[in-house]
């Protein structure tokens, strides 16, 4: 402990003059280590271990020792059409959920930022999907989509829009149906983040613009959006990642069916690892997913930042 503190101390900037430096630094390490050690052991460590695993033939419950096989997993993965199909579904799902989610959340946040009467009720209700366990959200929407006893088919019948459909088990409707659930489930979090951003926008600037005769749309693009932009960017990027990594919702709704139409990459990797025991191969899938997410995000953020420079 002392040696760690000694080695690292040069990295710390000089503390303010009126505080005794030595004891404070040691004290600081004492405060930091209880959280730092579990983080290093149980999340940084496994992350690196996972990357190494991708280059081995590790399998669950096999007697023979695990061997290094280089990039063989990745070469196999390249020709694994099922995986790439799952990957494509994952991208459709992530974008299909994130974009409507953002637009709907922006609308709701703008409404909640107004002086409307039912605002408290909307705020309370907006929390509900957030508070629910994902498994319960999945179960709930199964009830909504249920072919006979579901409210969706019943409403459609009442409106004379034809008979029931089995939304979650027909090939054409399964993916759109789970995307709707994804939008619903993530709406509150996005709304709360955007609302927080909205409340930071300068109110007097808004009023000044209104006095100058700027319409609602003009005020939004000239005053609100520039202030909201960083929050919007951050929450959209996070939503993309979260959605691409989604698991529980679709596991409960369809289990990846029908015919793999909703088999997100996470479900695919889970089955590979814990149903078929192919640890090394599944780890390679994880690496590919992470790499692709990183590249997508870099492109997305770089594009947005360049947009900043243009203005």
């Amino acid at each position, binding site marked *: 402990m002392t040696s760690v503190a000694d080695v690292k101390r040069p*990295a*710390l*900037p000089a503390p303010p003059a009126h505080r005794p430096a030595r004891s*404070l630094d040691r004290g*600081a390490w004492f*405060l*930091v280590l*209880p*959280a*730092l050690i*579990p983080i290093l052991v*149980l*999340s940084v*460590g*496994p*992350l690196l*271990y*996972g990357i190494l*695993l991708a280059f081995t033939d590790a399998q669950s419950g096999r007697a023979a020792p695990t061997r290094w096989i280089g990039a063989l997993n990745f070469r196999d993965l390249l020709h694994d059409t099922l995986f790439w199909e799952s990957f494509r579904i994952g991208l459709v799902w992530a974008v299909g959920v994130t974009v409507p989610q953002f637009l*709907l959340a922006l609308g709701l946040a703008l409404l909640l930022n107004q002086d*409307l009467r*039912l605002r408290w*009720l*909307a*705020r309370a209700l907006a*929390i509900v999907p957030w*508070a*629910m366990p*994902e*498994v*319960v959200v999945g*179960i709930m929407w*199964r*009830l*909504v989509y*249920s072919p*006979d*006893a579901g*409210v969706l088919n019943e409403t459609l019948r009442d409106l004379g829009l034809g008979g029931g459909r089995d939304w979650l088990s027909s090939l054409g409707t399964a993916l759109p149906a789970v995307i709707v659930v994804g939008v*619903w489930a993530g*709406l509150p979090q996005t709304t*709360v*983040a955007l609302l*927080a951003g909205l409340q*930071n926008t300068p109110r007097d600037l808004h009023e000044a613009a209104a006095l100058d005769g700027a319409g609602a749309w003009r005020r939004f693009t000239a005053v609100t959006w520039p202030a909201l932009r960083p929050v919007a960017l951050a929450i959209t990027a996070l939503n993309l990642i979260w959605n691409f*990594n989604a698991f*529980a919702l679709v*596991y*409960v709704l369809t289990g990846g069916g029908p015919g793999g139409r909703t088999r997100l*990459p996470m479900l695919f*990797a*889970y089955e590979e*690892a814990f149903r078929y025991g192919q*640890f090394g191969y*599944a*780890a390679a*899938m*994880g690496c590919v*997913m*992470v790499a692709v997410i990183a590249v997508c995000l870099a492109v997305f953020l770089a594009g947005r930042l360049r947009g900043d420079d243009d203005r």
Partner: protein
Amino acid sequence: MRTRAATRAGQYAALLAYLAFLSFPFLWLLSTAFKPPRELGSLHPTWIPEHPTLANFRQAFDEQPLLRSALNSLLVALAAALIAVCLATPMAYVMARRRTRLARAASGWVVVSQAFPFVLVIIPLFLVLRSLRLIDSQAGLVMVYVVWALPFALWLLTGYVRAVPVELEEAAAVDGAGRLRTLVSVTAPLLAPGIAATALFAFVTAWNEFFFALVLLKTPEKQTLPVVLTRFIGAEGVADLGPLAAAAVLATLPSLVFFALVQRRIAGGMLAGAVKS
């Protein structure tokens, strides 16, 4: 003036549409939970049960070890929340008060952890816990939940610490209070609401979590509520919607209560983090 009224009407219409979209699945869940089997099987289900019953709840408790799994969830989530807060508070204090390279690295890690690739982590974690003989053990699950909750807890708490004026601590130091004494009797009381909110957040996260619990717990008696809930689907198929809905309602209640309690705080904490960082 007229356009203004029209705008208002439009806004209310939009708000009502949102309310309907957000609430209808939940209302349908409630309605299903109180319906007797005959109404559930009918081709024309109604919003309000014609003969409301509690039988579904009773059946839900009989069919699966629901009570037991709820207790498991409670135990795991409580332990995870307490440990996470105890570990995170000191570190958040240092991160907020000292702009060191470590603090910067930790903030970076907080951001990265939001993008955490669970696929990549779960397999090594499984292997590590297996070698520690912590597979199929709730202690192992608690460890995972603690580490999983730490980044967000750190982020929230750092915001709360920054909101406590340094001047107060300096005044205490001038008055002759030692460092520990300052932390315990000046900073900690001011941080208490933030710590409570963070603990509640960690609790709800653990209570709701499914993926790790599914992978790490195999013995039915040890499994947490979300895992047991999915067994309703697996074992009973579509036939038994009533008990499924009843169990889902029960599983939602605790987190709903907690969120109602901390709703304002959470939004406030996010604001504090957003403004200060």
